Structures are given as C-alpha cells and as structure tokens.
C-alpha cells in the first residue's frame, strides 16, 4: 500500500476528532455521544509554542488542561529559583483538575517543552454549563470527582506505606 496515494485517514477519521480524544480521557469515559458533543462546545483548544508557561505556581487557577499533542513539564521552583521537575506529561495526560472546582493557587508550574495543543476546560464555562445543562454537567463533575478521589486514594495508600516505614525505622533505631 502506497501511503502517498491510499487514504490513510479512512480508518482513523473518527479517531482524529476532538470528540474521540475527549472520550479517551478517564474523567469523560462514561459520557455518551450527545454529552461528548456538549463537552466539545465548552472546552477551549489552545496552541502553545516551545517553552511557553501554561501557568505558574501560586497563580489562582481557573481550570484544567489535557494534552492533545506535545509535552508539558510540571515543576516547582524554590526560593533561589531552582527548578525541580515533578512530572513530564505526554499526549492524553491531563493536569490542573483541582482548579476546576475551586479557585485555589496552583501548586506547581507547567511549561511546554515542544509545540503543544492543550484542551482547556475552565470553571466559568463549567458553572455556566451547570446552569444551562445540569444533567451532562453533573456527569462531567462526577467523572472529575472520580479522578480526584482516585488520586486521593493513591496518596493515602502511599502515606500509609510511608508511615509504616517510619515506624519500622524508629523501631530499628530503638532496638539498636
């Protein structure tokens, strides 16, 4: 098959749409087609260049981003301006979802490392959606809630593990 002439888009036509991309996100997994179409109308597609700041630590956040293509680095900056990388996010990942429900300061900075397309979902649009289309908005909120609860669960498991390690270490020290 000659890729220059054959229609390579035929099979993946649907997979290139924004709707399909949104349906692959964990928080939007349980939405039906109609609700996905609705979601498509309230998200914003933003194009970023290389090394562009998406948001800074301490900003008042107003929404979450998911990465359609490209790469985003999440990092913290200490007093001296020294940066520590927290995560490197790829296409399909998402970040900043806590800001969607409450206007809290961002707990890390985000920066693109290559030309990136981000899909933003923001609180003001979400609030309007809750007023205008309560049912799909509630479903989206539930999906978000699920993601945040999963994170919380993971963190509490990790905390439990660390606590156990700490007590083990203390025991060892007292034994010695």
């Amino acid at each position, binding site marked *: 098959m000659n890729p220059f002439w054959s229609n390579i888009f035929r099979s993946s036509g649907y997979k290139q749409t924004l709707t399909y991309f949104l349906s692959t996100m964990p928080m939007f997994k349980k939405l039906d087609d109609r609700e996905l179409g609705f979601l498509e109308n309230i998200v*914003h597609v933003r194009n970023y260049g290389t090394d*562009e700041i998406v*948001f*800074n630590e301490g900003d008042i956040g107003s929404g979450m981003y998911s990465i359609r293509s490209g790469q985003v680095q999440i990092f913290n900056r200490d007093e001296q301006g020294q940066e520590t990388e927290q995560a490197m996010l790829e296409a399909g990942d998402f970040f900043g979802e806590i800001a969607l429900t409450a206007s809290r300061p961002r707990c890390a900075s985000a920066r693109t490392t290559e030309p990136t397309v981000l899909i933003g979902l*923001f*609180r*003001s649009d979400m609030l309007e959606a809750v007023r*205008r*289309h309560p049912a799909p908005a509630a479903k989206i909120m539930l999906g978000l809630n699920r993601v945040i609860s999963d994170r919380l669960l993971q963190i509490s498991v990790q905390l439990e593990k660390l606590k156990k390690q700490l007590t083990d270490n203390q025991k060892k020290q007292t034994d010695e």
Partner: protein
Amino acid sequence: MNSQSGMSRAQVAVLYLILTTSIASGIAIYSSASTVTALLKTATTGLFLPLLLSLIVSFLLDPAVQFFEGKKINRTLSIFIVYALMSSLIFLLLLIVGPPNWEGMINALKADFPRYISRAIEWLSSLLAVAQQHFPFITNYDLTERLRSASQSFFGLILMETPRSAIKIGSLLLLVPLFSFFFLRDSRHIMRSLISLTPNRYFEMVLDIYAHVSWQLSHFIRGRILEALIIGIVVWLGLSLTDIRYAPILAVIAGATNLVPYIGPLIGMIPGLVIALVDLGMGGQFWWILCVYILIAQIILDNFILIPILISKVSNLHPLWVILAIIMGGKLYGVMGMIIGVPIASIVNIIFIEIHQYRRTFNLYNRYFTNRGKLL
C-alpha cells in the same frame, strides 16, 4: 548628461513612473479612506438604538430561553418558543385590557399641552413676581418670555417628530426581534471566538473577567428594566385611582425616567404634577398623586424593595458621574441619550470595578512578573 546624473534615461523614466504612481495611489487611498469612513458613518447612523434595544431584549429573554434549553430543546427552537410565548402574551394582554387608545390620547395631549404649559408658566410668573419683590435685579431677565418660547419650540418639535418617530418605531418593531434573535442564538459563539484570540498567558484571566462582567451586566440590565417596569405599573395603578387623565402615558414617562438615578424620578413626576395641578387643582387628589410618585413609588418601592433585591451594590454610580453621563448622553443623542447615558456609564463602571477587583484579589503583578521584574 547620463553620466552626470548617474542614471540612464530608462531609469529616470521608471523612477518618475514609480513616484507618480505612488503619489497618485496615496491620494486615491487617502480620499477613498475618507469617503469610506463617511460611508461607514452614514451606513451606521440609526443602527445604535436598534442594536442597543435588541441587546437589552436578548438579556431579558435569555433566562427564558435557558429554561427551555434545560428541557433538552435546542437553542434555536427554544428562542422561537420564547418568541411565540411573548407575542401571544402581548396579544392576550391587549385582548384583555383592550388596546390603550394611544393615538386618541396623544391627540388629546396635543390639544391640552399648550393649556398645561400656559398654566405652568402663569404659576411660575406669579412665583417670579414674588421673587422680584425680594430681588429686584431679576426683572432684567425676561424669564417668563424665555420659558414660553422654549416650550413653544419644544411643542413644535414634538408635533414634527411624531410621524417620523412612528416610522422609527415601525422599523424598530421589525429590527429588534431580528437582531435579538441572532444575539440570543450566537452571542456565546461570538464571545468565545473573540476570547480565543487572547494570548495564552492572559487567557485564563480574560475568561474569568469576562465571566464576572457578563454575570454582573446581565443582572444589572435585567434589574434595571424590571425596576422601571414595576415602577411604571405601580404609578399607573396609583394614578388610575384618581380622575387624572393620561395615566398610561404618565406611567410610561415615570418608568422610563426611572432608569436615570437621582434626577430621573424627579423629572418624571413633573408632567404628572403639572397635569394634576391644572386639571384637579390643589386638592386631596393632588396630594395622593404626589404621594404615589414620591412615597409609594420612590421611597417605599424603589429604595426599600426593588433596589436592594434587583440591583447589586456594585453598580452604584457616584452622583457626579450620573450628572456627567446625563450631560454627555444628551449632547450625543438628545433625550434618548439622557436616558440611556447613565445605564451605559454604569455598565462601564461595572467593567472597571470587576477588572480592578480581579487584579486585587489575584494580584496580577506577581502573576505575570517574577520577583526580579522579568516578564515571564
């Protein structure tokens, strides 16, 4: 010669050609630009009012459209439903109440107006006579004559403008529903595409500020219109208890002038009081009418009930700004400008306050500049 100038004949010709064409095209662009702006000006005159009115109508109808949208009806259809409901409601009201005889009322007013004016002038001149006893230098200014000529020219203006304004109202009845339909249907889309033009770094801020401002604005406009409507209805009811004529027209005046804070209600009650004085005399009915205007409509209803409920504190304008807005509005658009000047000033005020609030709470300086002052 060629070697002296350093240019061949052909080069000189080309240079000449280029220079002349550039000058000619410059003149052409300049003149066409001025004609284009003139054309634009003539094309857009008279569009301001229908656009403004349809914006207001779309703000008013938006909650109803949203209600139907919440019932899983698509937006266009719900707008049509709201339109159908509104027109049938107006039709029903006209059927029940019977169309108020506007034309007859205006014709009667035309006949009565000079009488009211002359009585008002008589009363004023008696007042002046008293004043002249105390301040003799006033006699130099012929105030009564000046007032009389001013009122006559005003009356002539009204007579002339009536047929023209009838045509205007006809075009408004056609344009406003059309414009507001598109505003209702596409305003979100238009605003979204406008907002998406902002640079990435300021996008979240612009989106947040837009959400705040639009929320405040819709509340403010809805509140003001509802307030004017309720005041008008109350004045109508209060006046119909007396024998006063032209109660509906007086109620419309009271409602419309109520859009202008502080000064509007005072001016709105003058025609009612003059008519009451002339027709009914200084009796119990006059005092009741005064009571309706000041105590019931303004103090009890507006100050204690409507303003606290309908209009947020954010949109309060300083009295100085109110007066400035009235003067500037009057200069630009006449009486209409005087009425809509203050609401527009309040809208600008709301936008400024929201942006200021946002800057203060979210501390934009720290947000976009590092400690070293470098733009991030």
